[in-house]
């Protein structure tokens, strides 16, 4: 007797993709678990991990925020190759506010996020009309230019950077601040993208002429999305400044641009959750591979290639699809 799997959810899905009856604990858990597990995981992990892995968690959260920021932009039709621009501007803003003006870090953080977001938006405002790869090129170039500007003008410590920047009050505040920011950004912006406002953003990606034709100023919407996404990345940059107690030219490094894209692509773009999943996998993986020395990057790259080839839709999309797919074994004659 042969057996095969039969889908038993198709009949319901044809009528409604997202209607579930909430009449039992099992069903409520079915909906809650995928949301509760990451929340609890992120909240409890800092308590369990040792010092070293706490730092890794910090890094995971930071890259997840950068990846979410990238994903928000990508959803609005702007492929950014320059998350380092937003990250770096936020980092320098917070560094200068605390180092030069003596602000406390907890005040400097939100101000640097908004200021960094504003500066990033102003930087890219002139090229908002560019589409596709042309926009991406500009985002790639600007952070590389800023590095040279800092070097040449010796502004804000020049090549030396600013060191001895005030840290956050304690390790726990540090950890829960970034984890809290990540969870708030993840769930908050997921909600935003599902709203009518988010629909307009996604429609701009899909077909911008059609959105213009609806009497909507797409440049105004794109500028808003850019501000939201870059503020998020700037917050991350500002945060890392206080973790490293240093800000300098490395904040504009290509790593901050490329790794978030890898995380979002491996995790599955378009959901923000995918971006988070990607960061949760890639950052610790990179740490684990540290043990094997010189070939680390090769293995890391290989892993990326395998993933992108095997699961082009992204891990999150794959898991989500399987999770909502009900099957049973039936016997085939």
């Amino acid at each position, binding site marked *: 007797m042969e057996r095969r799997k039969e889908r038993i959810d198709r009949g319901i899905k044809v*009528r409604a993709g997202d209607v579930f009856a909430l009449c039992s604990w099992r069903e409520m858990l079915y909906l809650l678990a995928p949301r509760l597990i990451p929340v609890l995981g992120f909240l409890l992990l800092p308590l369990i991990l040792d010092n070293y892995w706490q730092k890794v968690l910090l890094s995971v959260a930071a890259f997840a925020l950068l990846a979410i920021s990238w994903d928000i932009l990508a959803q609005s039709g702007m492929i950014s190759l320059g998350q380092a621009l937003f990250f770096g501007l936020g980092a320098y803003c917070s560094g200068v506010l605390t180092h030069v003006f003596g602000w406390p870090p907890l005040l400097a953080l939100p101000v640097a996020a908004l200021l960094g977001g504003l500066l990033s938006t102003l930087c890219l405002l002139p090229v908002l009309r560019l589409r596709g790869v042309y926009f991406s090129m500009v985002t790639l170039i600007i952070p590389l230019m800023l590095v040279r500007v800092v070097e040449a003008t010796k502004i804000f410590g020049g090549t030396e950077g600013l060191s001895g920047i005030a840290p956050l009050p304690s390790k726990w505040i540090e950890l829960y601040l970034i984890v809290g920011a990540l969870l708030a950004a993840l769930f908050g912006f997921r909600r935003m993208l599902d709203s009518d406002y988010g629909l307009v953003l996604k429609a701009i990606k899909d077909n911008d002429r059609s959105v*213009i034709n609806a*009497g909507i100023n797409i440049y105004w919407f794109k500028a808003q999305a850019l501000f939201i996404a870059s503020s998020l990345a700037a917050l991350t940059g500002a945060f890392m400044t206080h973790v490293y107690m240093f800000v300098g030219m490395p904040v504009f490094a290509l790593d901050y641009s490329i790794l978030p894209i890898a995380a979002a692509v491996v995790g599955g773009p378009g959901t923000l959750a995918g971006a988070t999943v990607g960061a949760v996998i890639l950052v610790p993986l990179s740490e684990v591979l540290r043990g094997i020395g010189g070939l680390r990057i090769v293995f890391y790259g290989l892993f990326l290639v395998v993933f992108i080839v095997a699961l082009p839709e992204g891990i999150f999309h794959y898991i989500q699809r399987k999770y909502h797919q009900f099957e049973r074994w039936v016997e085939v004659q």
Partner: protein
Amino acid sequence: MGAGPLLALKALYKNFGGILAINDLSFELAQGELLGLIGPNGSGKTTAVNLITGFVKPSSGAVVYRGRTISGLPPYAIVRLGISRTFQMVKPFYQLPAYKNMIIPLCSPRVKQMAGGRYGDRDAVALDLLEEVGFERDAQVAYKSAAVLPQGYLKRLELAKAIALKPDVVILDELFSGLSLAEVASIVPIIERLRQEGKSIIMIEHRLKELFRIADRVVVLNFGQKIAEGRAEAVMASDAVKKAYLGVEA
């Protein structure tokens, strides 16, 4: 009727590189009129619409709407003044269900302004509008993804998106192309209802028979120039039009 036409094209020229796509084009649209815009392929009909709606800027000349020059305004601003259009090539948001496609125009500032400062329940309005253009309410079509809808429904969706903006002028760019006779017959009453509501309509059409039944007046273009204007029968009898369409001296 008030003073002057609702919409007027005044001596428009448009150069694309060396090609004169629109050559000294002038015509007017009166309040409540249904104007047909016809001509052979490549005669500049769609370019004329792009000039009116601001997607293309004229090389010279002006588009005047309610006494105000609108050429030079960005397309979204022109839509907000009450001129909406459909595209010849349907442009739905494929990943979204049909009724969610309607959310985009319903997010337009124009809709808020017309409804007295409130947007209301967009999903409900979307379903109402879709029903108006022939998405049967009980048949679930409105909930289907635009990617799986047949051409006839996509055209209706395109029309609904234009109507959602509560326009005064509706420009329909080859709405009938690619549709069966039965589908055309079912869309014609929708257009007639729009006229009864007092909307002014410009229709670009190749389906002349269907167009002539409903159009008050037609303008014929060839090589970017207006070669005839007037009532359908009179226009089609003119030698210039016969030559343009058939390529022979009549």
